[in-house]
């Protein structure tokens, strides 16, 4: 572990690997992620949000596989809508208006440069640390395939 690096360890529920968004019957739909999609999402968070999520291990329980990861702990306040908007526009994302996958009222964003979409953005997933640096921690991030890209691009 790097000096000063405080992490928390996270285990998925057995047989459950968070959520992702896929195109289903012509609609962008929030659905349970497969293990590979979950790991892709974590790698994407490292790349796009400059996070440092690391795979700790994989184990089997009676109810299914469990994926263990570590992630730097962030101490801070929940970000406001304006702060989230500022974060995404600075990183060349645009808001997908009137669309939410996850909690009703959460925000969704899309960046056409690399077809990356972020869903379920809300204050508990975007923190401002003690220096007011905005640090995302747990948004649903997806590299959209061609079908999902088409659907999203029709919305923005």
């Amino acid at each position, binding site marked *: 572990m*790097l000096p*000063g*690096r*405080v992490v*928390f360890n996270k285990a998925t529920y057995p047989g459950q690997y968070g959520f992702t968004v896929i195109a289903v019957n012509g609609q962008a739909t929030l659905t349970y992620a497969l293990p590979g999609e979950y790991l892709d999402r974590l790698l994407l968070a490292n790349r796009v*949000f*400059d*996070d*440092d999520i690391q795979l700790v291990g994989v184990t089997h329980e009676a109810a299914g596989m469990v994926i263990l990861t570590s992630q*730097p*702990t*962030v*101490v*801070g*306040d*929940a*970000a406001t*809508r304006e*702060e989230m908007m*500022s*974060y995404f526009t*600075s*990183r060349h994302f645009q808001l997908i*208006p*009137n*669309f*939410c996958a996850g*909690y*009703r*009222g*959460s925000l969704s964003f899309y960046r056409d440069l690399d077809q990356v979409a972020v869903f379920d953005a*809300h*204050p*508990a*997933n975007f*923190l*401002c*640390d*003690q*220096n*007011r*640096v*905005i*640090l995302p921690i747990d948004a649903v991030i997806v590299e959209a395939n061609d079908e999902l890209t088409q659907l999203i691009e029709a919305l923005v």
Partner: protein
Amino acid sequence: MKAIVNLSREETLKARFNQPRVSLEQLRVQMEEHRQASEEFFKAAKKETSKSGREKVTVG
């Protein structure tokens, strides 16, 4: 104080790696505060949108 958006990976990682050490209890309190902040956020968003997700508009 205005929020900062770091565009440099190194700067962001530096921020992530230099968080204060806090107790588990403090983290639990923080998570609860964040959950409440999100609840308020969703409530405000629901007030502004109709069931179909479109923004509410006032006619006339």
